[in-house]
């Protein structure tokens, strides 16, 4: 039984990695502007999507059809994950969380189809992108909750006297990152990525003239990047000052710092290269990884940091 549960945890980890890859492939579809290169859904040029000949994966079809197949694979993994969780998992709330993941992946597939059928309306495409991040966080949560360490109980850490608790700070950071990803998705799907074509200035100013909605959306994404960076630096500073001995907190905080630094460079490169495919797509993936890391850190902070340490644990910790 123990082996099976570890296997389930590893399977969910694999599903999480495949989801990150799927987000990368989805980013490729928008970066190469291939979203409408396959006009029909769920068929592909009239073929059953699983029997569409490889010789016909030409031009933009390669990216769009590849995204559909990768998404189908992740959907299949999610079905297995959910069935497996319901068969083996004792905690009802974990079972229901896996069911929610399955519901999310089905809804995500439908949204993907709708955005093709309705020719990429910005609100459906943005919703599709945001649900992808939500699903990513859900499978991360499942991977955390099914991990042997979580089940045994993570080490308890006494909260330091601060005006804002670490849990609240981490949750606020995750919220800020998610908001930033919504803005990023909105920017991509309203084609506002080059509405401000210069960086670090914005249309030659620190605050650009707001001549169009695209400029507003783009500038909001830049402002949110500053806020997110500040939140992440704050979180990392807090953890390195007060919790640096606790690697379950320190490591994700450090990874998050590195990722956000890479993300800033990628964002600037995206503008400087006029949305070259590689930096633009990696920017999408790195954004998801920042969110995932921040979310993981939040889960651990809530599980580990306590205000009043129980007496029986005080000595042990």
């Amino acid at each position: 039984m123990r082996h099976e549960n570890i296997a389930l945890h590893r399977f969910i980890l694999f599903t999480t990695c495949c989801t990150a890859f799927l987000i990368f492939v989805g980013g490729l579809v928008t970066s190469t502007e291939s979203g409408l290169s396959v006009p029909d859904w769920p068929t592909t040029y009239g073929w059953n999507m699983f029997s569409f000949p490889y010789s016909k994966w030409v031009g933009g079809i390669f990216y769009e059809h590849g995204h559909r197949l990768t998404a189908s694979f992740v959907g299949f993994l999610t079905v297995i994950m959910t069935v497996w969780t319901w068969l083996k998992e004792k905690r009802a709330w974990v079972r229901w969380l896996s069911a929610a993941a399955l519901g999310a992946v089905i809804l995500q597939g439908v949204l993907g189809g709708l955005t093709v059928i309705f020719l990429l309306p910005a609100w459906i495409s943005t919703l599709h992108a945001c649900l992808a991040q939500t699903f990513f966080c859900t499978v991360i949560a499942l991977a955390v909750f099914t991990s042997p360490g979580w089940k045994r109980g993570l080490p308890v850490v006494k909260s330091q006297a601060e005006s804002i608790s670490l849990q609240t700070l981490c949750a606020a950071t995750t919220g800020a990152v998610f908001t930033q990803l919504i803005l990023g998705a909105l920017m991509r799907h309203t084609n506002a990525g080059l509405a401000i074509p210069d960086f670090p200035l914005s249309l030659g100013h620190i605050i650009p003239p707001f001549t169009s909605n695209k400029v507003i959306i783009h500038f909001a994404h830049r402002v949110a990047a500053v806020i997110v960076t500040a939140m992440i630096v704050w979180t990392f500073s807090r953890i390195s000052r007060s919790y640096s001995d606790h690697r379950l907190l320190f490591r994700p905080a450090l990874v998050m710092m590195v990722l956000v630094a890479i993300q800033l460079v990628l964002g600037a490169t995206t503008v400087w290269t006029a949305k070259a495919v590689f930096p633009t797509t990696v920017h999408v993936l790195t954004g998801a990884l920042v969110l995932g890391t921040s979310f993981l850190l939040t889960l651990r902070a809530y599980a580990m940091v306590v205000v009043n340490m129980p007496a029986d644990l005080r000595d042990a910790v």
Partner: protein
Amino acid sequence: MHKRVFFFCALLSVAVLVAACGGGGSNETAPPPPPGGGATGGNTFDMSKANATVTGKISFEGTPPPNDKIQMSSDPYCQMHAADYPTAETVKVSDGGLENVIIYVSSGLPAGTTFATPTTPVEIDQQNCHYIPHAFTMMTNQPLKVKNNDMTLHNIHAWAEKNPQFNVAQPVKGLVSDTKFANPEVPLPIRCDVHKWMGAFVGVFDHPFHTVSKQGGTFELKLPPGNYEITAWHEKFGKKTMMVEVKDNDKKEVNFSYSASDKGTAD
């Protein structure tokens, strides 16, 4: 336990069925029909009155900017024809004249006059992964035939703003899609999302006084007597307008001039 297994097997079956439905290669390619019919009513204009001739040239001053290079390697079929089309057709200058400029009467026509819609279809062909012609004009509700003469897949995507957008698959050589546009729109871009370099522009008008500059940038319009605003539109260099007054059987010349410093406008 058995109920749970049954529940998830049922879910899995539904998901697979939804994902996999559909048959083999389909020939279904018709775009959605536009609203409105093709006939015009009311005070229909007598085209024999359009006896004045306006000719002209769209000249290009200076050195034309180089067109973007086309990278066709993403499709082996297109790649076979890459040598014939090394660059995009955005700026095409011959004998000092700019081709593919849409020229049309933008104001001056008597209010309330309607014009008979031609029943002869306008055609655009996809040959060697290029649209032929690159720019063309037509009337509202005039039939448009979109052909695929290539041994590869194309999608025809009309990026319309004043007409319903459509995106139609043409996976097989020889397929023809028929469509119409109900509302005037200039320009109405047509693109292939499979092959990023493929683009064409159509001007849709509710009158018949429009054309596209040909070899040497030349054009000719037949107009009824009147005082008109003539507009020229190019995909890169934008719009220019001129006024012209013509009388019965007049012959007038209207010349436009573009240069590399002209910047395009949104419409």
